[in-house]
């Protein structure tokens, strides 16, 4: 691996937690099938309705509501691959999704950035996407990159410019959450083909993937689903993300919200399998709550249980899961709230075995970028990563001879064993950096320094000039057609 590339550090743990029982998983799956069969899902896309009708779904063309017989769902879900590869721009960063490894990404897609130069909040732009891609490229905790904020300086083609900024500034896989519609998807496919070198390589180790949000309750987004069809046909992974809000767009009980969100995801997944049997698809469900007093959207109430139940539901369907971590409701980093809310996330998602997880680095419920938040979230991630590792119990680590040599009342400072192991035993968090006054420095201040250091020192290998030119050509064509 080149010197400017650090090996990835995914969560790897032998510990497994079963949050839901087998019976509960069956109950939830049966509830999803029931909703798909009795209630149905609205697909406001003629293209999708045509495919669904041709493959045996019960389509009401007038209301655009589609009902799925149980057997039909099970038939198409059987084509799904359990695991697949998400390629990096560099093959060293290919993510081979399999049992026992969890890769994290950044959060997205925020709309405001705190500018270090002006010390003020401003609308986000393409340069911010590139800057954060460079930081994500450096951090071994980040397995792949979600463009973190919107390239609002590029209007309607912002999603393609976000992809461009991602490809230019990180060797890692890029997953978009904003490319919606058939035409943008075709341009994105062209860009990804440039990065991979060929359509065949793109299918084998796709450098790009897409996550599409469904609309609760029980609706697919026309542009989202039509963009997904384009990518699924090309073998590019697509995922569907349901965000039911309990009390407004979902029942006020968690099991009901989960079953309904699952129905949205599964209906879209079935459509993908009808279009391209065996297409790589992942599952993602992030429930939220409506504050009963204000109606506000709340990511982290006191009772946020079940945040990782959808990971087990995805696995029960035989799909990889995109777990939902971080995304604090705190207005800025470094607050008590910005740690109290998400600190549990990487543990729980690691223990339930999600394959991929979003997303580090945004505040104010996924909308606001302070660059140092990514460093602080990565620190919480590393705590979880070490916590979930096995403890080595061997003659060397038990150190019985050293204990015997020191005996009761002694100390271990003069021991060769201590000199050999002390530095590796203490993994320093950003909270344990000693300042000139001998006290620990403010974690946020240390994080800001780290951001500045990475930006001054870490430059991923640039794309070769031919690829840069080709991406520029595609973007210009897209700007001319869509902008």
């Amino acid at each position, binding site marked *: 691996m080149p010197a400017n590339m650090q090996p990835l550090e995914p969560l790897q743990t032998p*510990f497994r937690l079963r*949050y839901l029982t087998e019976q509960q998983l069956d*109950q*939830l799956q049966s*509830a999803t099938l*029931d909703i798909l069969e009795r*209630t149905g899902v609205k697909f406001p896309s003629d293209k999708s309705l045509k495919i669904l009708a041709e493959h045996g779904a019960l389509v009401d063309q007038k209301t655009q*509501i589609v009902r799925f017989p149980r057997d039909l769902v099970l038939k198409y879900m059987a084509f799904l691959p359990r695991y697949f590869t998400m390629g990096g721009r560099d093959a060293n960063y290919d993510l081979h999704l399999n049992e026992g490894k969890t890769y994290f990404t950044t959060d997205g897609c925020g709309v405001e950035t705190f500018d270090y130069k002006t010390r003020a909040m401003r609308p986000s732009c393409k340069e911010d996407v590139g800057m954060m891609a460079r930081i994500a490229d450096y951090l071994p905790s980040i397995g792949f990159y979600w463009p973190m904020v919107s390239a609002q300086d590029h209007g309607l083609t912002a999603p393609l410019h976000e992809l461009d900024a991602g490809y230019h500034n990180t060797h890692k896989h890029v997953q978009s959450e904003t490319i919606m519609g058939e035409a943008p998807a075709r341009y994105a496919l062209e860009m990804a083909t440039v990065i991979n070198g060929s359509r065949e390589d793109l299918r084998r180790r796709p450098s790009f993937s897409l996550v599409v949000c469904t609309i609760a*309750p*029980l609706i697919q987004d026309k542009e989202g689903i039509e963009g997904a069809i384009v990518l699924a046909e090309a073998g590019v992974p697509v995922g569907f993300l349901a965000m039911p809000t*309990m*009390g*407004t767009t979902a*029942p*006020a*009980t968690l099991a009901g919200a989960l*079953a309904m969100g699952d129905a949205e995801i599964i209906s879209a997944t079935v459509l993908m399998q009808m279009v391209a049997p065996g297409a790589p698809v992942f599952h993602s469900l992030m429930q939220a*709550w409506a504050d*009963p*007093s204000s109606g506000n959207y709340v990511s982290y*109430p*006191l*009772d946020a*249980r079940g945040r990782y139940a959808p990971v087990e539901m995805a696995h029960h369907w035989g799909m990889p899961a995109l777990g939902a971590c971080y995304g604090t409701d705190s207005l800025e*980093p*470094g*607050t*008590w709230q910005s*740690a*109290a*809310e998400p*600190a*549990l996330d990487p543990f729980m998602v690691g223990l339930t075995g999600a394959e991929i997880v979003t997303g580090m680095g945004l505040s104010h419920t996924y909308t606001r970028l302070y660059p140092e938040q990514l460093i602080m979230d990565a620190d919480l991630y590393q705590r*979880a990563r*070490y*916590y979930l*590792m096995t*403890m080595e119990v061997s003659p*060397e*680590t*038990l*150190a*019985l001879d*050293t*204990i015997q040599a020191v*005996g*009761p009342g002694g100390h*271990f*400072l003069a021991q060769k*064993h*201590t000199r050999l192991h*002390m530095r590796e*035993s*203490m*993994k320093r*968090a950003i*909270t344990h950096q*000693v300042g000139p006054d*001998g*006290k620990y420095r403010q974690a946020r201040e240390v994080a800001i320094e780290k951001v500045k250091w990475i930006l001054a020192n870490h430059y991923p290998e640039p794309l070769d000039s031919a690829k840069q030119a080709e991406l520029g050509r595609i973007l210009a064509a897209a700007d001319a057609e869509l902008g």
Partner: protein
Amino acid sequence: MAFSETPPLQPIKPAYHLRILNDDQLRTLKSSTLEILQETGIYCPSEKCLRIYAEHGALVDFATCIVKIPAEIVLSAMRHAPRFYTMGARLETHDLRLDGKSLFCATDGCGVEVIDFVTRQRRPSCKEDVAITARLADFLPSIGFYWPIVSAQDFPATAPLHELDASYNNTIKHVQSETIMGEQLARYAVEMARVIAGDELTMRARPPLSLLVCCIAPLSLDRDGMESALVLAQAGLPVGFMSMANTGSTAPATLAGTVVVGDAEIVAAMVLIQMACPGAPIFHSLMPGMMHPHTGAYLATAWEGTLLYPIGVELAHNWGVPALAGIFATDAHAPGWQSAGDATSSLLLCALTGAETGSGLGLLESCTLLYPEEIILDSDIHDRIRLEAAGLDTSPTALALDVIKLVGPRGQFLRQRHTRENLRRRSFSDLTAQPAPSGGFRDPLELAREKATRILETHHPEPLLPAQKKELNRILNLADNELA
């Protein structure tokens, strides 16, 4: 006199569990502890303890105070230890039944400095701080039992007894001391516990006091601590032993080495108690720290060091005794991102590994500094984890399929009766997402400070009977006269 009801306890009852060490690892760790106890031994500078060890077959060198305990003697003594028992409260409704199903959490202790509740200035701690925080702890359902959170430094020689007095006068919950050291102090403490329980039988069945004694790493027992523990154990009060072996300085620089040094200290102490009082209730507590390699400072929360807390829980269970788990420790100087980040993970993993008890909420700066609002903030995190660990309801009402069908695609759930009935049952934090008059949300730290003030203004737990108060005063006067 009017008083406030103490709300029912809300322990963490995990619906699912986790194993960190496999059977092979547990066996290796146990045999390593046994090897250390047999080959290296323990330093125990107490004539009284050495005699007990010797009378029960341990190899005692009275000149060096080193005790080597053969493995079969350790195992035979530990067979007497009860796996489950009750720690009593002043009111039976708040007794802690350690049955392996619930995790009861306590405050932290024993800090030495306080951010004053009124002036917000930093100052040494005093008895009044113990009393005030006991009242906060009495109100909070997350607090199952009370550790006197700071030292009553205004009563230097008898501080531990005054801490006990301040606690009993301000909470009906079980009190666990971490400072009663020495035979004389312990005898006074037992007298005070007897006053609270009312009689000898009740004190043994529902002991209102327990004691935690720290070992001294590496491999040493504290004379006063052990002699104190013997007095309480003889009275039927639970005693536990905590190792705070420090990776790199008072323990090997490897995690497994740190674990076995700490475990050996704890087991040596537990064995002594079972030799002296077979069947006495004991508990195991492994809370190691780590040495900062640049400064030598003690760190409560290095990245991988906190893994040792849930491992300590599994070791305790492997020895057949309940665990007091390390939770909430932080090296942060003030409430904030660091204190919250440090707190969350250890509590979850200790709950999922089945810890029966844990301490401590409310202190900062590596368990030394009391911030009034920290106990409220920690309590909020406790509740998040309590709810997270409680599992998911998948009953027909919770699945709500009929409601989903009724609403259908493109609808909304606001008008449904099911929503009205269930949304208010969801638990929302009273610290986060609280609207500010100017828009946005209020600062959770400010809300925590307000909540602490509100509790102190309104919550006054059921007082002791006048006769009990009088009796406690009499005992304290005697102790002050004898020991001050």
